[in-house]
């Protein structure tokens, strides 16, 4: 199959738009054609703005012809996760309560992306209020994994990951509390970046001064994700965590010598349930690339014995704050994940909360200290291979029963509690032939370094059969 315009990377497409070698109109048309060809099989682009996108593409084309100053994302189609409000485009949060909601205004980060010239092609599917790592809801149904549509694409930014993997858009937005843009990136063979708290502002999102949920970019390459990130970042008064943009985020991700980097490799962060097949895959893949680093030891930061309890306390607080009222008024319309999280939260005591606040600080400090002896930590993106989307979550790993529906996500929620930034990049396929991804993470504020290491690894992987990004067979999806 010859490459179509929609398969270009965002960076290439943007360059070719600037040099007038391709037109935003043709690019948008190519993306629309791809959505129409394969979305019947995967169901990821759930609200579409095709007419408006075509109109905006014409305006974008004219701007190129007129020699206007062009934004970072000029003429690039993007997918926006359905948890982010988009002006004039149906935004449901995956919930029946909002099934007909059409926002009057863009959310800040969406506005920032549009202001840099991006064209919103549509909304990507997400579980109800982003709860859970299976992209499935009662408004739009389930999103399938492009490598095998009966399996889940994970979530909650599953729609974005699938749209990227299938070439529907070169860029998409995601958000991540306990792994919501990392797990689907891992399951679909694309890139997802969870930035440090406050880097991409989100207004009205967190009900509290808690930086667990963060917006971030998703793409097919690290460079593309970095391009999108530069459009998303801002100091927005509506986000209490936002701050002056770190100028290092505008540095190129290219040029880093992995031979100067100390990596700590760990299959499970020392505290997370991870399937034996994934462990073996991680061991085999890292064996193939650990030699590129100045130093690559097997080590993990110490997250403490109570890290899962810590996560559950803050998860409970977040859900009670956000959903307590909904639970009271609309329990019949809410899905089981939201109800379960909120009801669990109500059982947590004030004493637990006090303990959690102090313990979080200790976890963060030990994590920060760990980086005196390492530059990045590398671990799997997800604990298991993609599973059927019929199954709401992973109930058992290596024969051990998971105590909560979130526990299988520990490999991604544990770094969240330490305020890590973390990039997921594809790294071949797992023991079942499904996409395998790795997390490359650092402490709060190390975004530029983490992205540069991720990019350098991606370059190292790209011509190696067992490490390169897997691509789904679109022919099978076109049926």
């Amino acid at each position, binding site marked *: 199959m010859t490459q179509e315009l929609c398969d270009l990377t965002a960076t290439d497409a943007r360059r070719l738009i600037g040099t007038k070698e391709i037109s935003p109109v043709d690019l948008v048309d190519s993306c629309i054609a791809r959505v129409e060809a394969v979305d019947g099989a995967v169901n990821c682009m759930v609200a579409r703005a095709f007419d408006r996108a075509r109109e905006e593409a014409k305006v974008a084309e004219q701007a190129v012809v007129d020699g206007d100053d062009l934004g970072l994302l000029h003429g690039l189609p993007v997918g926006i996760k359905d948890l982010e409000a988009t002006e004039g485009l149906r935004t449901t949060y995956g919930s029946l309560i909002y099934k007909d909601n059409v926002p009057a205004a863009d959310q800040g980060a969406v506005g920032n992306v549009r202001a840099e010239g991006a064209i919103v092609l549509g909304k990507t599917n997400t579980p109800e209020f982003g709860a859970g790592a299976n992209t499935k809801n009662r408004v739009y149904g389930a999103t399938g994994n492009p490598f095998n549509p009966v399996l889940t694409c994970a979530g909650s930014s599953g729609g974005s990951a699938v749209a990227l993997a299938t070439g529907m858009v070169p860029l998409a937005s995601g958000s991540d509390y306990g792994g919501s843009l990392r797990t689907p990136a891992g399951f679909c063979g694309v890139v997802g970046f969870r930035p440090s708290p406050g880097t991409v502002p989100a207004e009205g999102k967190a009900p509290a*001064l808690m930086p667990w949920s963060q917006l971030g970019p998703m793409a097919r390459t690290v460079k593309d994700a970095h391009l999108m990130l530069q459009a998303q970042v801002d100091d927005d008064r509506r986000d209490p965590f936002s701050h002056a943009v770190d100028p290092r985020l505008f540095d190129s991700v290219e040029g880093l010598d992995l031979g100067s980097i100390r990596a700590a490799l760990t299959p499970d962060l020392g505290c997370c349930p991870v399937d034996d097949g994934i462990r073996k895959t991680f061991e085999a893949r890292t064996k193939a690339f650990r030699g590129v680093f100045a130093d690559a030891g097997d080590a993990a930061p110490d997250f403490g014995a109570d890290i899962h309890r810590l996560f559950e306390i803050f998860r409970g607080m977040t859900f009670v*704050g956000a959903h307590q009222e909904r639970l009271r008024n609309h329990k019949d319309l809410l899905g089981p994940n939201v109800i379960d999280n909120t009801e669990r939260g109500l059982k947590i*005591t004030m004493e637990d909360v006090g303990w959690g606040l102090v313990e*979080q*600080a200790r976890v963060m400090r030990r994590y920060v200290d760990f980086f005196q002896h390492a530059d990045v930590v590398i671990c799997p993106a997800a604990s298991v291979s993609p599973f059927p989307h019929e199954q709401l979550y992973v109930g058992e790993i290596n024969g051990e029963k998971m105590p909560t529906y979130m526990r299988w996500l520990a490999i991604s929620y544990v770094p969240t509690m330490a*305020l890590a930034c973390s990039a997921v990049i594809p790294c071949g396929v797992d023991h079942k032939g499904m996409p395998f991804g790795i997390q490359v993470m650092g402490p709060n504020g190390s975004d530029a370094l983490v992205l540069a290491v991720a990019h350098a690894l991606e370059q190292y992987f790209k011509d190696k059969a067992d490490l390169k990004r897997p691509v789904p067979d679109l022919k099978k999806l076109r049926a």
Partner: protein
Amino acid sequence: MPDLCDLSAVELRRMIGAREISPVELVESCLARIAAVNGTVNAVVAIDAEGALKRARELETAIARGDDPGLLAGLPVGIKDLVNTKGIRTTYGSLLHKDFVPDRDDDQIVRLKNAGAIILGKTNTPEFGSGANTTNRVYGATTNPFDPARTPGGSSGGSAAALACSMVPLAQGSDTGGSLRAPATWSGVVGFRPRPGAVATDRRTLPLTYFSVQGPMGRSVADTALLYSAQAGGAHPFDPMGFPFDAAGFADLRPLGLAGLRVAFSEDLGAAPVDDGIKRVFRARTGKFRHLFKEARDAHPDIAGVRDAFWVLRCVYYMAYHKDRVEKHRDLLSPNVVMNTEAGYDMSLADVAAAEVAWRQWYDRFQAFMEDVDLLILPGNAYPPYRLDTGAPKAINGKPMENYMDASLIRSALTLTGNPVLALPCGLDETGAPFGFQIAGRRHGEADLLRAALALETLLNADPETARPIPNLEKLQ
């Protein structure tokens, strides 16, 4: 005739740089003032005279050699006794730590020392900084330099009183519910609560809150900004609220034209407890200058739900900080610490979640309000400083206060916004004690706030009724 120690920090720094005075002379002058009045005021509780003189001699040599001595070269600084200082007794105002001598400095002290500051001693604070007073069982009460029978406020009361008496030209403080602002107001000095994380610190037990911030105090806006320029911008990875920025510009502050500013005035945020006498003074004083702004209106954001949100969150934080201590050492702890911690036991996660939601709504309302104004001006305190023998008033305008933080709402509401707030002195109140304003700026708007405050201070100091009051030191000796 003023002594050397009475000069402003900015002027002293200039004179030291120009070798007109030696840091040694300045330290000696400060020590002499402490010897003269600290017996009555009890503001500086641990003094490192030997260390300070040694450091002053080193700086003198370095300056003579032509080294770049730093923004605060040779300036003695008072450090609140909640901050760890290497080799200087640090008690947190608690009997549990009464003999503690840290073997390392907190990160913020390292920054001050790197800027050439001389750590002269520790300033008094209530136990663990609990409450708007400055008394504890280790050192006793600090008194108000304008009336030793009354409190200087707190919890940075030692720093405020030491500044008012010129024991030091600069002092560090911290602020959760107003601990930089309340004592600055009652002692007639300047206190500045910056945005969370601006003065990053490595020792926060609870990093994910707006509550506790570190900040500068001085006798003038320019002095305060000078200290801030050395404190701020040094992000520490342990402080997730911190991020690097260049604060050096604050050392050389230029006034902002008042005629270009839109200002909102509120005597009580609509519903915070404020004594009628304070309201009268507030109206009279602001009436003198409000016409000078481009726009002046009486307006405030709606504070519904803020009091309860602050109290619930404070209780969670107290449980987090002090629960173990209260269980083990109840008899050694102050009633404020015990009460504030135990109040949390009856609360639930649903209360905390509701408080977080109310906080977030207030944050949004406040930021929206500040879109249309540059400054919000409020009274610095809800009532005049109380007598040490009778304690804080149990009622304001006849209305009983439920707990020891209720009367702080005029300040704690601003804590929850994360916006910078500066306490600026403005003459005396009806009881003869210092009166002052809180001036809140826009989010991340420290520079504009400090520049506007500098302009307003110049204006206020030109009128004897609104000028910064100065205590009669002879009465304190």
